[in-house]
């Protein structure tokens, strides 16, 4: 594919023009005639019994069109992600701060606020459980009656871990703690529901999974899914939190109840209080190695604080377990994964999905091991790293793994790793400079045992223009751009000739959720397949007309080429001829990511088949008197397969690292007795433009051989994964003390060594 004309080019995002002119429409921008404003009543307590919920006074307020409680839901009163244990509207007990009790639709926001204030709720506060270890105790009060507090418990082992540890030369054992982290997407959750003339419900949803939204909305309304239509408008970021449903179901319920369009948008405070967070983990981790640095065993026990409901806890824990050993050859491994209910915030998907927690732990361990053995942190990683052909401890063959060591070597070269300490290590009495490296693994695709398919429909019209329908949600990461580039490439047309509709469940079959770095592969393949069908029809036309064998023909930059030379026939001419001949230029494809026969899901649940590798090196300056850390340099080398659009790939890398810096140093949802103390962008400290260094990025383009369109694979998650451990290792290098807790705030850095 070296002679591509559009794939591999840094063309602007497909919706760039609408965005820079302010014309892109997000949920809060949708304004429909007769539209009402929806709001939810949220619990101020982390755990309380609802003694009385009386909406009668609020319903009488002029301008209030509807107020619904659990009793008014026609169908199922639950979200459905992995389990259906979380109600849409509370029945008798609130289990986390911000859980919704009632939904209001009113003529304007102000009236909706007045109505919320007029709803009478009598609570009996109950003692919550906020410590997952306490919640695991057999005698602990059940957070969800009838359900165990330990909602997920799995173990996985391979080899003989105890024997390997017993005979190892060196054993490193530590306990780690990671924080509850907030996505802080800029557009808060929103949905707009409306009732069509024929009784169908249409919902504009700021989401990652329009078809799963449709299923949940239909369940709640007790309507067939065919009567529900979900459309994604422009989406202002998601990062995992909009994979699970939020307010779009309530918007649909209110529209259904009132017969009028209802727009329901969360405020920032409610957004932070209510959507799923990155799970806080407690991890006990043992690494065993030989005296020359060869890993012989890993043993880990992880407890994830799930909050009261299941959400994606089990899947996140499995992903943590899948990568708990890192990108290393490990024969003996044992991992215990425990998800526990508490009355803390609910948790779920967040970019990386368990991999960032795992990476912080295994890469910290690698540095502690290197330090103990007096080895170079780079060499110990090269010594143990996986390669092409390595079978992972979960039993998956790494078909292309050369990027693991290539990324390490490239990153080391970029910062002159061997000479790194020749810089000024103590530029002032209180300042120490340090360098840290981290190398990580992350998968693309939903994983074994999970539906992993997508479809796309392409139609070329007689004028050569093309419409592309896909239900893959684009939250800003660029899948629509990727799809248009692939289609344009195969059809030999320019991007301006392609129109893409928003994801719309009434037009396109399920493309699955936009998660797990999967859409470039899965929807990318669907578009490639559909485009190839139309391409074949065009080339058939061309072969007939030019009396040339088809294999000598190609479509490039709007024209037919014969043996690589442009021919006077344009793609447009061919489209017109096809139309005149009655040959349809329409194709709808369905692709299913095919997991190999020899890899049954029993090997390891949700195990992925395609991997991205990446190495980052951080150079930090630590103020040893204040604990403040300045990230001076950040080197990032990542593997993206073949880049469809370098602008998008580099964007994912710099953006992932920015989030990784926050995860490392400042971001933490501070929750005390279940109550969030910093539910604002003022107090949840995300790094801004002056906090992030110029990131030095190198992309390794090693085409992926397995199931990847044109060799491309996902890149959305992996850049976030190595950042925190790279910074951790750099800080430890600077101050010569270890750190085991995220985020590494100035205050925490200063206090280590005190205890």
């Amino acid at each position: 594919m070296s002679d591509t004309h559009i794939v591999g080019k840094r063309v602007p995002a497909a919706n760039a023009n609408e965005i820079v002119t302010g014309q892109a429409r997000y949920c809060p921008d949708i304004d429909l005639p007769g539209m009402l404003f929806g709001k939810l009543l949220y619990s101020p307590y982390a755990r309380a019994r609802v003694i009385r919920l009386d909406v009668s006074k609020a319903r009488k307020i002029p301008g209030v069109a509807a107020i619904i409680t659990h009793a008014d839901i026609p169908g199922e009163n639950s979200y459905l992600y992995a389990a259906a244990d979380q109600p849409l509207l509370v029945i008798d007990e609130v289990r986390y701060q911000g859980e919704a009790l009632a939904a209001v639709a009113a003529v304007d926001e102000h009236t909706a606020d007045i109505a919320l204030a007029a709803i009478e709720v009598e609570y009996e506060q109950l003692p919550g459980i906020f410590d997952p270890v306490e919640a695991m105790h057999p005698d602990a009060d059940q957070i969800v009656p009838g359900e165990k507090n330990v909602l997920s418990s799995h173990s996985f082992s391979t080899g003989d871990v105890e024997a390997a540890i017993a005979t190892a030369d060196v054993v490193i054992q530590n306990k780690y703690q990671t924080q509850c982290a907030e996505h802080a997407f800029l557009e808060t959750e929103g949905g707009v529901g409306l009732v069509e003339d024929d009784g169908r419900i249409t919902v504009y949803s700021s989401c990652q999974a329009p078809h799963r939204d449709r299923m949940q909305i239909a369940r709640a309304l007790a309507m067939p899914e065919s009567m529900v239509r979900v459309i994604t408008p422009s989406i202002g970021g998601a990062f995992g939190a909009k994979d699970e449903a939020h307010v779009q179901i309530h918007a649909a319920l209110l529209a259904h109840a009132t017969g009028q369009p209802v727009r329901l948008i969360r405020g920032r405070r409610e957004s932070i209080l209510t959507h799923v967070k990155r799970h806080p983990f407690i991890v006990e981790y043992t690494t065993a190695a030989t005296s020359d640095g060869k890993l012989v065993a890993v043993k880990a026990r992880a407890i994830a604080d799930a909050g009261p409901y299941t959400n994606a806890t089990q899947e996140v824990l499995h992903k943590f377990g899948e990568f708990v050993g890192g990108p290393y050859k490990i024969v003996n491994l044992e991992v215990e994964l425990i998800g526990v209910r508490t009355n803390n915030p609910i948790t779920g998907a967040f970019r990386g999905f368990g991999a960032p927690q795992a990476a912080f732990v295994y890469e910290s361990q690698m540095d502690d091991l290197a330090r103990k053995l007096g080895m170079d942190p780079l060499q110990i990683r090269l010594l143990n790293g996986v390669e092409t052909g390595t079978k992972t401890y979960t039993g998956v063959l790494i078909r292309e793994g050369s990027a693991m060591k290539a990324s390490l070597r490239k990153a080391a070269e970029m910062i002159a790793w061997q000479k790194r300490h020749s810089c000024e290590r103590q530029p002032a009495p209180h300042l120490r400079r340090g360098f840290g490296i981290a190398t990580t693994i992350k998968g693309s695709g939903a994983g074994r045992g999970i539906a992993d398919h997508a479809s796309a429909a392409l139609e070329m019209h007689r004028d050569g223009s093309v419409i592309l329908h896909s239900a893959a949600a684009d939250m800003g990461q660029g899948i629509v751009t990727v799809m248009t580039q692939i289609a344009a490439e195969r059809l030999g047309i320019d991007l301006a000739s392609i129109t893409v509709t928003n994801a719309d469940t009434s037009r396109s079959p399920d493309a699955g959720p936009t998660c797990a770095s999967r859409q470039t592969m899965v929807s990318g393949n669907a578009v490639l397949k559909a485009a190839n069908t139309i391409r074949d029809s065009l080339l058939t036309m061309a072969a007939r007309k030019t009396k040339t064998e088809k294999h000598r023909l190609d479509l490039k930059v709007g024209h037919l080429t014969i043996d690589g030379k442009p021919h006077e026939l344009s793609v447009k001419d061919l489209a017109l001829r096809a139309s005149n001949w009655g040959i349809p230029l329409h194709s709808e494809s369905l692709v299913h990511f095919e997991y190999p026969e020899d890899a049954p899901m029993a090997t390891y649940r949700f195990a992925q088949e395609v991997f991205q590798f990446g190495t980052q090196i951080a150079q930090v300056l630590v103020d040893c008197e204040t604990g403040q850390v300045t990230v001076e340099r950040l080197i990032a080398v990542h593997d993206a397969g073949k880049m469809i659009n370098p602008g998008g790939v580099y964007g994912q890398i710099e953006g992932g690292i920015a989030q990784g810096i926050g995860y490392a140093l400042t971001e933490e949802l501070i929750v005390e007795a279940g109550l969030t103390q910093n539910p604002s962008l003022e107090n949840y400290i995300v790094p801004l433009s002056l906090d992030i260094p110029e990131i030095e990025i190198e992309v390794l383009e090693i085409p992926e051989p397995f199931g990847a369109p044109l060799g491309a694979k996902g890149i959305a998650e992996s850049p976030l994964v190595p950042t925190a451990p790279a910074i951790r290792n750099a800080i430890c290098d600077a101050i010569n003390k270890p750190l085991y807790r995220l985020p590494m705030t100035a205050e925490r850095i200063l206090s280590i060594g005190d205890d």
Partner: protein
Amino acid sequence: MFDLEIEVNGKQEQVSVEADTTLLYLLRDKLGLTGSKDGCRSGDCGACVVLLDGKTVNACMVLAPQANGASVMTVEGLAKDGELHPLQRCFSESWAFQCGFCTGGMLMSCYALLKSNSNPTRDEIRAAIAGNFCRCTGYQALVTAVEQAAAELRANNV
């Protein structure tokens, strides 16, 4: 109610608002200019940054009556006669955004910067957007876009 006159993107508007209406609400809900976004309503995110008499402000932190008699420029006012401002074009070409929700405010902060500094350093650009939160990018491609736009504008003015 408070009657006010305000010039928005060169157009004179007369509107009547409650005294506690914000400029952001006025722009989005009364005038239909939704390019300025509501990201926090507390001045923390910068998604609603517009120019008020030439200076960047968070429209959520200005009461509409405070803007009586003033002139406002929003992201919708950047392109002239359908032609994109160089900043808009460079934002697109450099992938200065991903989800685009910060872009309206970000463009206005950068527009204000280039009005006062035709040749900003990367650090100066970062300082100019220090009140504009972007969760998707690391600001890097964006800074490059502003550098390129500045160079174009300088070349055009020679």
